[in-house]
């Protein structure tokens, strides 16, 4: 069963066509990787699905659990069960980790907040009263972002480059966390530019210049990305080439 369907969506930002007639289907319960080089349009796709300000498609529709959410607000999409973990999570002066995680929870029980922190391998006693500001390292902030997503118990979590800005050793931890999301029944849309991370998915889509240019088995998509895209990260696919790689 599909949880998300994007049908021929185009998005224009400040006069630039960042998504071009893009279609995508994500199956319920899957980890679905969106792989691509920088500026391929991956993050824009994530923001479009989430409904962030300015990311309204000029054409095409977005369906979540068969409901057309194209005109639905960001908050309402979140209440339907979609959420997003930002690549560079926002920092909040004065807001405690506890209050931040609780913000998205229906049942704001302390034990559930603590569970969410343990889930990302952070000791609750050390972190609950910390402030979600610059005193947290990038890695800690990423984990707290994932904890807040986990605590919300969404149906679909869009994880925008959860592997960026953290050291190579911590990537395995992040990958483990993503797999645990799946085991909790959460569908993951995993945005990344690392083929080794994309390959943990059940299915992968390769993006270039606002288009999906290849889809299917993550290993094959990853291999294609490594061999063809990394040497040519800014390649603009013509319609002819796009057809060929598909």
């Amino acid at each position, binding site marked *: 069963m599909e949880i998300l369907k994007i049908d021929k969506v185009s998005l224009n930002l400040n006069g630039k066509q960042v998504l071009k007639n893009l279609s995508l289907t994500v199956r319920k319960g899957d980890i679905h990787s969106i792989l691509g080089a920088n500026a391929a349009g991956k993050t824009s796709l994530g923001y479009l699905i989430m409904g*962030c300000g300015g990311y309204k498609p000029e054409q095409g529709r977005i369906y979540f659990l068969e409901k057309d959410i194209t005109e639905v607000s960001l*908050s309402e999409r*979140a209440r339907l069960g979609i959420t997003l973990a930002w690549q560079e999570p*926002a920092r909040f002066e*004065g807001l405690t980790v506890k209050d931040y995680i609780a*913000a998205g929870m229906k049942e704001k029980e302390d034990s559930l907040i603590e569970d969410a922190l343990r889930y990302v391998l952070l000791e609750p006693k050390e972190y609950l009263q910390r402030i979600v500001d610059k005193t947290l390292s990038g890695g800690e902030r990423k984990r707290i972002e994932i904890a807040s997503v986990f605590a919300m118990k969404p149906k679909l979590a869009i994880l925008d480059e959860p592997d960026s800005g953290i050291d190579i050793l911590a990537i395995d931890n992040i990958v483990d966390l993503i797999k645990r999301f799946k085991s909790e029944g959460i569908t993951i849309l995993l945005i990344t530019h690392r083929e080794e991370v994309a390959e943990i998915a059940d299915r992968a889509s390769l993006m270039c210049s606002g288009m999906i240019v290849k889809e299917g088995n993550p290993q094959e998509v990853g291999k294609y990305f490594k061999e063809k895209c990394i040497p040519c990260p800014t390649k603009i696919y013509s319609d002819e080439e796009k057809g060929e790689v598909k």
Partner: protein
Amino acid sequence: MQDYELMLNAYARAGGTPEVFKNSKIAHLVVHKNKVIGKHIIEGLILEPEETSSGVNIKLKVKKGIKIENPVHLCFGVLPEEGMQEINIKAKVEDGAGIKLLAHCVFPNAIKVVHKMEADIEIGNNAFYEYDEIHFHGDTGGIEVIPKAEIRVGNNSRLITNFSLLKGRVGVFDLDYESEIGENSVLEMMTRIYGYGEDRIKIKEGGRLIGRSSRGLLKSRIAVKENARSEIINELVASAFDARGHVDCIEIVQGNARARAVPIVNVTNEFAKVTHEAAIGRVDKKQIETLMARGLEEEKAIDLVVSGMLK
């Protein structure tokens, strides 16, 4: 007696704990309009209020070498809808002494109330003085709050002030604190205010870092919405060797509100340094959208960001 109970009720609504007024180890002073209605002194502290026609003159002194263990609780207020309260404080913390004051100022029914405070504070060497002031106002905005202070800090000492006005309408607020900081001494001034309606906020905080290796931080966190106005003038002057200072002002503006910040840094010694940062604007879009992506409506997301900043 009735005024005393009403003051304590207002004090509790302002976030205070009235039980402290029954604790014999905690000094306190309760002033309603120009009447002293509660007072308790502990050893080492001189606290002498004198009633005047419009308020109270207070002489406060901490004797040499005495560090007051528990915060001294002060409660000032005007309960009727109209009235004037002028508090004049002359404080001296002698060498090696220290005190923390926790003042709650309550004006829950104010329609035409003026609260003025004039403080002259002298802090000796190796001493500390910490002053937290929390205001609780009603919803009408019919109040003028005008606190002024001149503070001189000796060597190896610490001065910390925290002012917050987050409950009720601000009304008209005009704060003016000036300080002079000696060798190896530290100044920290923090102001947090949430203004709305027709509130008018003016803050002028100054620190003169005249002592070698003195330190100064002036920090303001202001949120204004609807038709409120705010103006922050923070000035740090560093004239001594190795003096260091920082001015940090953030103002969040919503609706038709207007905010202005003027950080002034003045360095007259080549080995001194003062930095500043000021940000005025609406709540960061990414912060709002992050919280909206957790299911909060935009207005609640803004409230959460603002309340965090003002904490």
